[in-house]
Structure formats: C-alpha cells, structure tokens
C-alpha cells in the first residue's frame, strides 16, 4: 500500500524576488523555508531554512553550487554542505535536511507543503 501525501501549494513570492544563483527565506505559518533559484541550471529548490548543525536559521543565506553535478548549499556558519535534491549532508555528517517541491507559474513561485 502506498500512502499518498497530501500536498498543498502555497504562493511564496515572484521569481524576480529571488537573486540569481542565490536564496531567500520564505515564511509559511511558523515554518521557515529556504528557496533557491539555481539560475545557471535553470532549476528551483526549497529546503528547511534551519541548518541542523547548530540549529541556525541560515541556509537561505548560504552559497549554492555543485559537487560532482549534485546541486548543494553551504551553510554560512561552518560550511556544512547539503544536497538540494535529497537534503542529505555531503560533508560526511550524519544530519540531513528536509526538502520541498517548487513550481513556477506565470512568474510566481509556489512551494508544496504537507498538510
């Protein structure tokens, strides 16, 4: 049996609100979501904003890039890096982060959250 996740899409911001190849933080109720526009790859990603290493709300201010093709974000505090696709920590650590689906419609960015 597969359990269907019920996803709700909410409007986050305009595509132009997000810096090229960078991130912003989106507020959804009490949740903080880091949204990234990987302009170079023409891709959008969203993850939790909190870095699990020292529980800092900072990933949206991190630098994005890739490691062997895998898109990643580096936390500005101690440079732990996380895959933007799986949320897995790439700096051989144990912690991982939550990721969210993103879609773009007419220049508007939507993020999917589980209800």
């Amino acid at each position, binding site marked *: 049996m597969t359990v269907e996740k019920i996803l709700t899409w909410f409007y*986050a*911001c305009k595509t132009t*609100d*997000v*810096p*090229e*190849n*960078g991130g*912003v*933080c*989106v*507020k959804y109720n009490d949740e*903080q979501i880091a*949204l990234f526009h*990987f302009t*170079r*790859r023409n891709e959008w990603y969203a993850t939790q904003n*909190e870095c699990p290493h*020292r*529980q*800092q*709300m*900072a990933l949206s*201010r*991190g*630098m*994005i*890039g*890739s*490691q*062997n*093709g895998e*898109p*990643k974000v*580096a936390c*500005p*505090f101690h*440079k732990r*890096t996380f895959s933007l696709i799986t949320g897995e920590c790439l700096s*051989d650590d*144990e912690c991982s982060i939550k990721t969210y689906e993103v879609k773009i419609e007419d220049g508007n960015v939507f993020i999917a959250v589980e209800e």
Partner: protein
Amino acid sequence: MKIVVIGNGMVGYKFCEKLVAKQSNQHKIVVFGEEIRPAYDRVHLSEFFAGKSADDLLMATADWYSENNIQLLLSDPIIHIDRANKKITSHHGLVEDYDILVLATGSAAFVPPIPGVEKQGVFIYRTIEDLELMTAYAKKAKTGAVIGGGLLGLEAAKAMLDLGIVDTQVIEFAPRLMPRQIDDAGSKILQHKLESLGLTIHTNKNTSAILGDDRITGMQFTDDTQIDVDMLVISAGIKPRDELAKQAGLAVGPRGGIMVNEQLQTSDENIYAIGECALYNNMIYGLVAPGYEMADVVVAKLTGGEKTFTGFDMSTKLKLIGVDVASFGNPFVASNEGRAIVLEDTHKGIYKRINISNDGKELLGGILIGDADAYNMLLQTCKSKVVLPPNPEDIILGSRGGSEASEGAGVASLPDDALICSCEAITKGMICSSVTDAACETVDAIKKCTKAGTGCGGCVPMIKDLMVHTMKTQGKYVRNVLCEHFDYSRQELFDLVKLKELKTYDEVLNELGKGDGCELCKPPVASILASLWNELILAKGNDTAQDSNDRFLANIQKGGTYSVVPRIPGGEITPDKLIVIGSVAKKYNLYTKITGGQRIDLFGAHLTDLPNIWQELIDAGFESGHAYGKSLRTVKSCVGSTWCRFGLHDSVSFAIEIEERYRGLRSPHKLKSGVSGCIRECAEAKSKDFGIIATEKGWNLFVCGNGGSKPQHALLLASDIDSETCIKYIDRFLMFYVKTADPLTRTATWLNKMEGGIDYLRNVVVNDSLGMAAQWETEMKLHVATYECEWKAAIETPEIRKRFSHFVNAPEEKDPTVKFDEMREMKKAKEWK
C-alpha cells in the same frame, strides 16, 4: 556465531565497526552499554566545552547499529556472567546467551581515599554526564582545583579555565608535571607555560583532606597548608573496570585489569577483553590507539585471520590549546643505554630532548615542549628505526648552513611500514598505495578510502605531504587548483580573467571553468573580480558569488544576527562621532565592544536593521570598515609626536593616510597595518601585514607579519625612507601580493612559500626586478580614485537594499528565532547547543 560485547565505549564501538567491515551479517552481534548514549569520542571530550554537542561527539548514531544489524542495548549494564552456561544477565534482567563474549568495559577514574571526596563540588572527568554536572556547578564556583598533573589532569584544568573559573590550581603529588612522560627540565618549562595561561601549579603536594560541610570549601595538605576552593576535579589516574570479570572468576592482575594473552583472550578462551580494561604483559594501555589495535586483533581472530597483540607504543601529544607537549618512544634514557641531546630556550619556552643510541644511529625517544611540530616526523623516525643523519642534533635544531633538507625528503626516508595514523593503524605504504592504486589525489579522498586521519587528525599534515610526494614520484605535476570547477591556481586565474576582461562570475565560469561552481571557487573568483575591476562588489551577478559575509556586508554572528564595524581610521575619533555610535547602539539595542583593532564593533543587529543602522552612521560621516571583507582592516597607530614625549613623527596622520589609501582593496586574505611613532612600537606594527616605524631620518617599512595562530614578526623591507617612497613601496608590495597569493593566504604565509624569501621580495619591490613597478603603481592609483563606500552604495540602491530582509514574503518581520541573553547590562547571543 553470536558475539556479545559488554561496553559501548570507543574500543567497543571500534570492534563493531571493524567486524562489520570484515564480514557483514555473518555473526549476530549484541552490544550492552551502561551509558545512556551510544559510544562517543572520549578523547575529544573536552571539546564539549568548546561548543561541541553530545551528538557531535558520537562515533556513530543509533541508526548505524540497526542498519548493520547490531542490537544495541543502552543504559543497561551487565551484572552477571554465567560462564558454565555461557549466559549473561543485565541490570534490567535481560538474559542473553553467547558463543563469544567481548569485554570492553574500559576504566573509571581512580579516586584516592582522601577523607571528604564524597562532598558536593568534587568531580571526576570521564563521561559527558560528568561534564554536564561540572558545567552546572561551575556557574556558582569562583575557585577550582585539580588533583593530578598528568595528561588528563592538565586537560581538566584547562577545561576549568574554559568554564570561566579563572583561579584554578593544579595539585601534583610527584615533584613534576606529567611525571610519566616528561623530565624535570621539561616540566619546568611546561609549568611556566601553564602559569601564563592562568593556572597555578603545585608539585610535591599531597592532599590529606577535603574540607567543608556538605560541599567542598577547601583542601588540606600534608605539609599543613590549606587552600580555599569551590570546586575540585580528581584526575589521579585510571582504574580498569574489571569488577564483572573478577566476579565471573576470570584472572585479573594484582592491581586490577583483566589478564589477556597475545590473542586478547582472558583465562576463559571464549571471553576476550579489549581496551582500557585489558591487562597485557602487566600493562594497562590508557590510550585509544592500542585499544583499536586490540579490537583489530580480535576481529582478525574471529574472521579467520592471524594477528597478535605484542604491546604498543605509548607516545602522546597533549591536546591542550596553546601549549605543545609531546613525548615519544623512551623519553628518559639511562646513561648506559644512550645519550640525550637537549635544546632549552627558557625565553621562548621551548624544550626539546632527543635520546639517541650510543652509536648515534638510532632515535630512542624524546620530549618536545613549546614546539611539537616535529612530533610526527620524530615519532616515525623512532618507531621505524630510520638511521639518523651524522649530526643528529639537526633534527631538533634544523640544519644550519649548507644544503637545506627539503620537507619532502623527510617523508620519503620513512619505510613503508611506518605507522602514520596510529588511531586507525594506517601505514605509509597504505597511504601511498591509495594514491597510486585507488587514484586518491586529495586528502579527503585518502581519508574516505583508508580512514587515515579520521581519528584525532594529528597526522593530516603528514598525509598531505605523503600524497604530494607520491604524486610527484609518479611524475604527476601536483597542481594547486581551486576546486573541481577550475583547473587553475588563483594566480593563473587572475591573469586569465584580466586578459579576457571577464566581469562576472558566470562569465569566468563559462570561459575558464566547468559545472556550476561552489563555495570554494566563488569567493576567490569574486575577490579577483573585485581586485581587478574595482566595481561594486554587490553588482548583479556577483552578489551571490560573494562569501555570505560579503553578500550582506557584515559578519554573521551566533544566532544569525550581524556585526557592524564602522571605519575609524588610525583609531582616531571625535567626541561627536563617539556619541553617534553610542546613540545608534542604544536605538537598535546593540552590544558594543572596543576591538583589538582600535575601533568599535556593534554586535547583534538584525538583518532587517542593517541598512537603517548604516544610514544613520553614514549620515554622521562614517563609512564601512570592511570587517567582513578580505580587504584592508585597520591601520593601528600610536599617538605619536603630537603628544608623546618620545614621538619622532606624526604616526596618527600617517596611519590615517595609509588607511584611507588602501580601504576597500580586495585581496586574497585580510590585510592589517600599523604605524608607530618610535622604536618603542606601541602600535605593534611589526605584527602586521605591513608596518611602519618612525626613525630619526624617516620610516622603516616592515612586511609580512602576522598575529593569529602562528604569529610571526614582519621583516624589514626598507629603512629610513620618506613618506612618499614608503607609499610607493607599499603600493607595489600589495599589488604583487594581490596578484600572486593563493586564496586565504596571509602575507606571512605567502612570503614563507616564496622562493628566495625576503631578499627576492625586496628585489621585486625596491629594485623593480620584474619591471612591474610602474604598472602596479598605476593600478593602485586607479583603486584609490574609484573607491566608493559599499554600504553607501547599498543603501542608495533600492534593488540591493531590498535584499536585507529575513523573509522575502514578510520583509518587515524579523527572524522570530533570534534570541538574546543578558549580560553586564547589555545583551549577548543565546548559547547554541
């Protein structure tokens, strides 16, 4: 076969890890641990005080055990072994049968029977819980003491200092510190160093009672003296945990420890003992590396291999921050066995002793205090019995005159079986073949492939040397490239970017690199672009390539707030400007502190407040201090001839001129300077990247000094020059550095790696041997002419100003997770976990 392990400490864990790696799933493994959490890194326990959490210290998470089919039962010590029926019983009443039982019960702190040890405020130093209890108690304590001046005792004493107990005393019973590792002369130097850290040391002191009613208030010694203390840590040695073995009738030593043979078998052939509970050849090995070796021997035996344990080297290096202490091989050689060569520099606090065989060929052991950089090399020379050079004193003095031995020659002379990483038992041969056979060409790759360097990390520099050496012998040209996206060094990239006139990060990546970039190449490329074109660093396209601190023009602090550092050239400031800083700090509730660089730092600003704060500062005539940038920080000055009775020239005016000339210049690392008005050097100019000291006839210019972790004094570049020449030389010097240094390399390190050293540099800067002087001076003129305050530009550009909000969809709201605590009438960042 069912294997039951009692004890989930460092060695018990390592046993599981090695067993799983050898033969997954063939054995059923059950582990019982007494502590509440899975095995953690006890060796680095003290880092708990430096901010590491219990989770950071874990050797592996609980999930690791279940993923590898290991049943882990924590908080449940074993209380009984029934050898006849091969069964054990736990405290909670669980009964497990076993085919093979492994005892890895470790040791406990030895607490001498001093009257009063049970009082509150008396601690031992072994588990995370001990540290948590100490942390809580230390809040109320002002004075502290440690019984025991050995390795662990000194570590505990440093921990007390870190806990804020500034008055901490060490009580050692023996006539010297670390009596088992170092000699009297070494102990004296060490004692001196520790006293300069703030510790008080007593040797030859024997505690007779711990005073106080319920809680400790003081200590009484056998020489009839007393001291007052609020808190005590006992670190007088270890006691193997052999109580379970004893009760099961296994043979134990007269002074404790479970007796084992070369296979680590106890007197019952189905029961093994490993780690600190095992007694081999009348010896308890109180270090982690021998424990790991024991685990390896038992795993080999259980998986059909052949290995034996025949003792282990007990060389150690103390981890105390700020004091290097190491002892290896046999540190005290008797006069008939060999002779000692000693270097003692009481001024610098360095003591080095090497013991060599009577024929002068072999290194038997030694002691290093104050400077233990040579530890790895000497340890290997000693263990591998490498034949010593004809003048063995060279190995501690460095060769003087004649041909200088290069560093690489050091690792090359080691035999293949030299143990490089003793935590993981990895030899030179294994590391070299990971380079040749498994094509590991980065230290990280070698770490992943061999596990070398993943324990205490002390061998990492040597791994790097070996890697470079092996690659060179393979005929590989070892390139110093930025990262996987650029096949160029910073210097090559600098020239190419200039030649091709590339202006944005993406252009550089398209033209010269591959992939999408990363946090390793973005900041250096952004810095090259800034140095070359001097455009606004937050211009579109380059903003997100800047290191996060540059992107927000402020340094991120604990908790996610930022610091604000206005430039205060030369440290000179008017009363009116001081008032502005004070009122801005008050309005935005900022913590204020005078920095080590003669200016004022305002901490705890919300991202959203940054533009408003800077608006007010700029309106009052301030500008960015670039505290976040790899660029000029401060030019410190002393008061100089305007007031000082010794001043030769006006050092403040010159410092201001220098600071305003080079402000905003982007460079491979930060730049600092200082100007002193006379030889008394109150501005500490000689510890700066470039420093200027007044002489009767003009200025002396010094370059490439550094504070930081490896301090180094600046060297004289030119003497008795006038202000104009001085500035000309600095222009050239800085441009040469900006163009040729690797990323994050300070001028001192840059010079240390430069062939020909200061003489070469002087030739380039003063005699213009490269013919670049005119061009560099013109480029610097352009920099000066185009300088603009970044913060001014940021607040005036709506597009940029908009970026300073925490929530893109609620720009007015501050990050609700930011929390502060109060301290001395101001605030501080909430402690992180």
